[in-house]
């Protein structure tokens, strides 16, 4: 009988899992829209971006398995860790809400991930650098897609403006965590494997602000920032997401699917 795994979180394994979990959870959230989007073109686009993210997660989990050296597969990490074992930022697990909220969440994350993966292309870890090269191209598209929508919703109707402004206010406190680094990550930065996230923050803010300005939205000031996801202290939403994601494997454990 299979059960929840305990990962040997060496700095490299932990680092890789954090990025993998971000991608999987956000990809899963986007996939929840499939068949329910405001227009068919968005059904296609959201599914496409979900596929990009799930693809990134798969590469990263596979690499985490290699780095851990215990023969674990992508599915072991995805299906056999509980909320406390997941390492994603809180932003990506936030519920879809309306289209404005989903788009804004995507916008904030994509702008981060675009800069992040571009910087990671210079990682001394060849596998992470290769994953970065592929992911950066994908995230550059997500940035464009989400940005176009932020502008349309912000500068569209009074209703769309109110909705995206509310989403911005609600989600902004989750953006600080994107740039959090602990001692284990800092050691990887020193080794040339990871990138210094604090160095990306001003660029991120400027890029985000440029779009928000065009969308007639006010970039919030950085106040209190929520965090905890990187150490497995999540919002209440993640447990429900995982219950759904892991359901079949947990019902019939040990099977090949």
């Amino acid at each position, binding site marked *: 009988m299979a059960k929840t795994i305990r990962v040997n979180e060496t700095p490299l394994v932990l680092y890789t899992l954090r990025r993998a979990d971000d991608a999987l959870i956000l990809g899963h959230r986007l996939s929840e829209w499939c068949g329910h989007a405001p227009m068919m073109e968005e059904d296609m686009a959201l599914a496409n971006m979900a596929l990009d993210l799930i693809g990134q997660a798969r590469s990263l989990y596979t690499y985490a398995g290699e780095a851990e050296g215990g023969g674990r597969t992508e599915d072991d990490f995805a299906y056999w860790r509980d909320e406390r074992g997941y390492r994603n930022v809180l932003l990506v697990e936030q519920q879809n809400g309306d289209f404005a909220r989903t788009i804004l969440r995507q916008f904030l994350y994509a702008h981060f991930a675009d800069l992040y993966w571009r910087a990671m292309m210079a990682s001394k870890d060849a596998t992470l650098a290769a994953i970065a090269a592929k992911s950066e191209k994908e995230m550059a598209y997500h940035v464009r897609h989400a940005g176009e929508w932020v502008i349309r919703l912000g500068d569209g109707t009074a209703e769309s403006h109110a909705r995206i402004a509310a989403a911005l206010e609600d989600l902004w406190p989750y953006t600080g965590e994107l740039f959090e680094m602990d001692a284990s990550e800092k050691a990887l930065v020193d080794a040339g494997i990871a990138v210094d996230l604090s160095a990306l923050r001003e660029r991120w803010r400027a890029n985000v602000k440029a779009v928000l300005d065009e969308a007639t939205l006010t970039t919030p000031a950085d106040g209190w920032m929520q965090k905890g996801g990187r150490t497995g202290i999540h919002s209440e939403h993640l447990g429900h997401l995982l219950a759904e994601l892991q359901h079949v494997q947990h019902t*019939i454990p040990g099977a090949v699917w």
Partner: protein
Amino acid sequence: MYTQALNAKPDAGEPQLEDAALLEAFQARIDAEDRIEPNDRMPAAYRKTLTRQISQHAHSEIVGMLPEGNWITRAPSLRRKAALLAKVQDECGHGLYLYAAAETLGTSREELVDQLLTGKAKYSSIFNYPTLTWADIGAIGWLVDGAAIMNQIPLCRCSYGPYARAMIRVCKEESFHQRQGYEIMVTLSKGNEAQREMAQDALNRWWWPCLMMFGPPDAASQHSDQSTKWKIKRFSNDELRQKFVDATVPQAHYLGLTLPDPDLKFNEQTGHWEYGAIDWDEFKQVIAGNGPCNRDRLAARNKAHAEGAWVREAALAYAEKRHARKAAA
């Protein structure tokens, strides 16, 4: 995903505008296997039949996203999740492609979608059945997409150019979907007892509705004759159904599964598998709106449309503002 011979009655009072000479010239083009293109003259009834068929096909693709979409968040591995998501995305693409083909006949996508949302238009009956286990995703790919391919391959030679060309691309993707579905079934049937039971149960539930996908038996079919004459339809419902049964029965046997038809037997003389009586009452009920999921499917489509209204309005408002700014500059 699929077009179905629903055999709706033509409007009795529709005026026949074409004169005999035009009709004859049109038929001569059809008989010469010429492709009819959007700007060509065509009988009103030809246009109407095709608009109905292509839009029903488009609606089926879009509604078909729902039963399979039901398992995207629960797919049992990341590989399966990605494949299913890609597949459902393909179906959406088919829907868009087909609405565009229907629009070449002069009816807008908005109008066609409205017909779906108000319940005026039909879509394939198969999507009114629920997906209850993961094996249903395998069974749908294998059987539903398999049946769709049987129907759609001949449509690649349909007399109407845009539809025929759309079908060529759609069939390529459907064929991939079908193999993917069958591969799920192979994996399940090689799996543990619970997985094999799941596979058998899915086959039991999907088999008969899949046979119904080909539409009423030829004897009861009201107007495939005209569609055949216009080379929209190349094979009868029963011919296609038989092709499907002949192709599928050996595949089920390979899986070690039993088809839920005690009357199924191979006829050595004809070389065909003979199947038992189809419950056409069930088919009629599902078409009439009484299938297990009809209401849910339409409600889901209407909900997405209604909740997306403010988004579409915002996009339009922004486009108008931008246009006005450009004009003022």
